[in-house]
């Protein structure tokens, strides 16, 4: 057990260090950090003094260690474009992205699972076929096109919903939320659906496949043979056994939701982390890019680590392998 955790932890640290190294190399070697901080009229002596004071003359590894240490504390320096600490920008933008991602994940689960169960139980029903066809189209429709279509219908033609921004937000001690105002909620609808649609089709197909698998097993047949009502067999016996892999995959998909949030935020001009990153690429705002790189990598590493641990806890076969194999 400890060996398994140690291996995984070691891997995670290596990944983080690699990403931090790339982020640092970007920061240090793309353009001149000094040039980006001072005005045109700064003399060469002043520049040299600033360079010395910031420690940019130190050996590479010392600089990298300092960068990694600061990054671990959430400090990424000043944004070239916004002229503000990156940590402040991130703190401002993070709630928007997390709110959008969370609502989308809930939406995807709340609609995807029932659709999957339905299509598994009524395999040849008309509605099931419609769902399956829709899901095929859903997979072929790129996220940004879904957003554009929604904007066209509900924003431009019907004029029901706002097409960009977060609406009014309420500040709850550093955490801004759009969930408490009407305009905030209305602004959330289209981005959340856009982001949820792909995950929804994925969850639906997964639940359907797992459910069909479970319905074929002996214990379900046995439950039927005992004369248990269909409803009980389907929802108590079968569905319960379907949900374990579904929850794991959903956990892993959390990362994808954050990644796809970049696209959704860009379509709807949603003021989150993803939009910040895309704008940073456009403006070559390296500190912001570095911060995003490190944060997204950290997020993924944590998710994967947790999922690995969960697998280990749930699946006894892994424990045997770990003891015999390593």
């Amino acid at each position: 057990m400890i060996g398994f955790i140690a291996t995984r932890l070691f891997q995670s640290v290596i990944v983080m260090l690699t990403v931090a190294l790339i982020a640092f190399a970007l920061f240090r070697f793309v353009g001149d950090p000094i040039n980006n901080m001072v005005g045109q009229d700064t003399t060469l002596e002043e520049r040299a003094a600033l360079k010395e004071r910031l420690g940019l003359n130190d050996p590479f590894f010392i600089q990298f260690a300092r960068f990694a240490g600061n990054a671990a504390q959430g400090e990424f320096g000043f944004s070239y474009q916004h002229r503000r600490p990156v940590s402040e920008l991130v703190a401002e933008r993070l709630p928007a992205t997390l709110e959008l991602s969370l609502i989308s994940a809930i939406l995807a689960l709340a609609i995807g699972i029932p659709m999957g169960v339905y299509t598994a139980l009524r395999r040849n029903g008309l509605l099931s076929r419609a769902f399956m066809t829709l899901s095929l189209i859903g997979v072929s429709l790129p996220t940004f096109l879904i957003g554009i279509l929604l904007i066209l219908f509900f924003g431009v033609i019907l004029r029901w919903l706002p097409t960009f921004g977060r609406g009014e937000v309420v500040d709850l001690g550093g955490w801004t939320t759009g969930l408490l105002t009407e305009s905030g909620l209305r602004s959330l609808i289209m981005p959340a659906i856009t982001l949820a649609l792909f995950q929804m089709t994925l969850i639906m197909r997964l639940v359907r496949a797992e459910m069909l698998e479970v319905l074929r097993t002996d214990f379900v047949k046995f439950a039927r043979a005992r004369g248990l009502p269909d409803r009980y067999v389907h929802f108590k016996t079968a569905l319960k056994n379907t949900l374990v892999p579904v929850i794991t995959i959903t956990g892993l998909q959390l990362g994808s939701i954050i990644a796809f949030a970049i696209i959704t935020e860009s379509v709807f001009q949603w003021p989150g982390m993803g939009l910040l990153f895309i704008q940073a690429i456009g403006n070559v705002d390296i500190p912001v890019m570095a911060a995003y790189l490190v944060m997204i990598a950290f997020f993924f590493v944590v998710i994967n680590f947790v999922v690995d641990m969960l697998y280990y806890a749930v699946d006894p076969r892994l424990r045997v392998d770990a003891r015999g194999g390593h």
Partner: protein
Amino acid sequence: MSVSTSEQAGAAPKSRLRSFLDGDVWYSFTRSPVVMLSAIFLIVTFLAAVFAPYVAPHDPFDLASIDLMDASLPPAWEADGDPRFLLGTDDQGRDVLSTIIFGARISLIVGIAAVAFSIVLGVGLGLISGYVGGRLDAFIMRVADVQLSFPSILIALLIDGVARSVISRSAHDEIALYVLVFAIGVSGWVQYARTVRGSTLVERDKEYVQAARVIGMGPTLILWRHVLPNVMGPVLVIATIHLAVAIITEATLSFLGVGVPPTTPSLGTLIRIGNDYLFSGEWWITIFPGVALVLLVLAINLLGDWLRDALNPKLR
């Protein structure tokens, strides 16, 4: 009697085409109208893309042929439409249908080049990993595992974004396409490497490979001449589906403004440009390139799904 003998005599030296037409793959192809439709659509699109300068009704990049008086015309069937411009024109008076044909050309070029790059990288690493084994194998597969835990579109976006900030602004437009192909290619190599490594492990211990080793063939030659042809089957299937993914990735990156430059717009760039005019009601500038993209991707996906099933004897 005589008929059957003559048939047999004719069939004896079966040509490759003949045996393909008699085979299961072709049979299942002719039996599914959806797949045939997809194939026809793809062939037409490919031809239109290749011969774009001759097929497109207008040349959207020839400034002499563009007239600002024609700007923002709706599709031909609408009241204000102009029969010269079937799908309408954009804000600069360019024919939307023509820009779509040229855009599909760029999308296909980037998509196919990225897939080819992925194949070379993935198959190469997979062969080495499977054949050499040991620490190198463990290392390559670890890297693959780590990469697999990130969505490929995120990897492509990160590589592309980082590369963009490294490259000077003036050089952007010239090498943007290569950067894009590199970014999308790198984001997709893992699947090939894993599959090829698996098949290589199986082939490595077979007698024909041992025989080649015994007669003193070098490992490079063995991998190239003997192992490679025997592990390429599944690669074809992966590549088909991957092409759809690569085209979507390219379109997404271009839509986000970090893909191909606006001077040579792909479908994604066209959608991005048109998106600005959505609010003023000029929906055709963005919707038609979008429809073209979806149809292209859908057709490739359908064909890929069919190919996977048709080539997999277990499913028959």
